[in-house]
């Protein structure tokens, strides 16, 4: 958790408190974007701008001289920090090699660690994930692991030195929202590092829900890039993350069984 909960002193101090901080580095937006699924770079650019994101994922693949490095040029131009992922890796060894290649190619020690078990679910393989996380932390990486919505695994990832934990709401690309809000709440409750809800978001209300549950940020791609209007959905997600964060900070009313009048009695 990055907020101190101290009263606001001035605008700058307030902003500082408001920033997401991962491993000591402030990130000015709590909406982290992915770049996968966009029909073309022009649509992606409009969506990234509308999202207000400051940190965005890319994947590492064999170079194709014809394809060029358009996405990197785009992120540089928009001054968005690059977060390489290890998508497609099935073992700790593959993920560690991919992360090291990303560090070389992109000159960043940030890595979104993904080690998935199979194509059908794309769910994280917890054993390989924890192994890879430990190796990468030892090698000096700032490790942001994509993990199951399992409070025990999240705790273990934090214990080996991950800079954040990124539990899924639902499997990648499903748009099923947050299937187990209670698990996410438990992860938030015990975490000493930022919690980023990663994967499963389908629409804006679910991004707001993640923040209401106490997540520090939301990471999404498909919900925006494959939406009917990616730019408009990116704006919706930005507003939802802000709204959910404010609602969490405001403190919601307790739920009641019976009605409670909000106007004075007639004879009062």
């Amino acid at each position, binding site marked *: 958790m990055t907020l101190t909960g101290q009263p606001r002193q001035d605008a700058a101090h307030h902003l500082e408190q408001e920033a997401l901080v991962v491993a000591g580095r402030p990130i000015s937006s709590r909406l982290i974007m*992915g*770049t*996968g*699924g*966009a029909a073309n770079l022009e649509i*992606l650019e409009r969506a990234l701008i509308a999202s207000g994101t400051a940190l965005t*994922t*890319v*994947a*590492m*693949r*064999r*170079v194709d*001289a014809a*394809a060029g*490095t358009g*996405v*990197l040029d785009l992120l540089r131009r928009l001054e968005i920090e*690059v*977060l*390489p*992922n290890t*998508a497609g890796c099935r073992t700790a060894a593959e993920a560690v*090699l*991919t992360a*090291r*290649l*990303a*560090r*070389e*190619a*992109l000159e960043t020690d940030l890595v*979104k660690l*993904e080690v998935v078990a199979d194509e059908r679910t794309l769910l994280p393989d917890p054993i390989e994930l924890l192994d890879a996380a430990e190796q990468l932390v030892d090698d000096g990486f700032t490790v942001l692991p994509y993990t199951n919505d399992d409070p025990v695994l999240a705790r273990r990832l934090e214990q080996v030195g991950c800079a954040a934990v990124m539990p899924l709401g639902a499997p990648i690309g499903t748009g099923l929202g947050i299937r187990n809000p209670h698990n996410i709440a438990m992860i938030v409750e015990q975490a000493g590092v930022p919690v980023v809800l990663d994967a499963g978001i389908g629409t804006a209300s679910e991004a707001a829900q993640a923040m209401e549950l106490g997540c520090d940020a939301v990471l999404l*791609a498909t919900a925006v890039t494959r939406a009917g209007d990616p730019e408009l959905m990116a704006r919706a997600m930005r507003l939802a993350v802000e709204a959910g964060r404010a609602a969490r900070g405001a403190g919601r009313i307790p739920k009641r069984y019976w009605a409670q009048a909000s106007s004075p009695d007639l004879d009062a």
Partner: protein
Amino acid sequence: MVVWINGEQRELASDAGVLDALGALGLPRTGVAVAVDGEVVPKARWAATSLSDGARVEILTAVQGG
């Protein structure tokens, strides 16, 4: 000698190194990373790293994803 670059067989001079492998594909030297036989070769060592016959060279870059 023959080396494998990103899974494709390439004929290179017998004294070829990492920089020659990049050149063979006409690649830029920024935004890419190189592994030879499963080990990352840092950019600072590209010029000094020679390849052996049958070496497996992987050259990666960032693409849209995640």
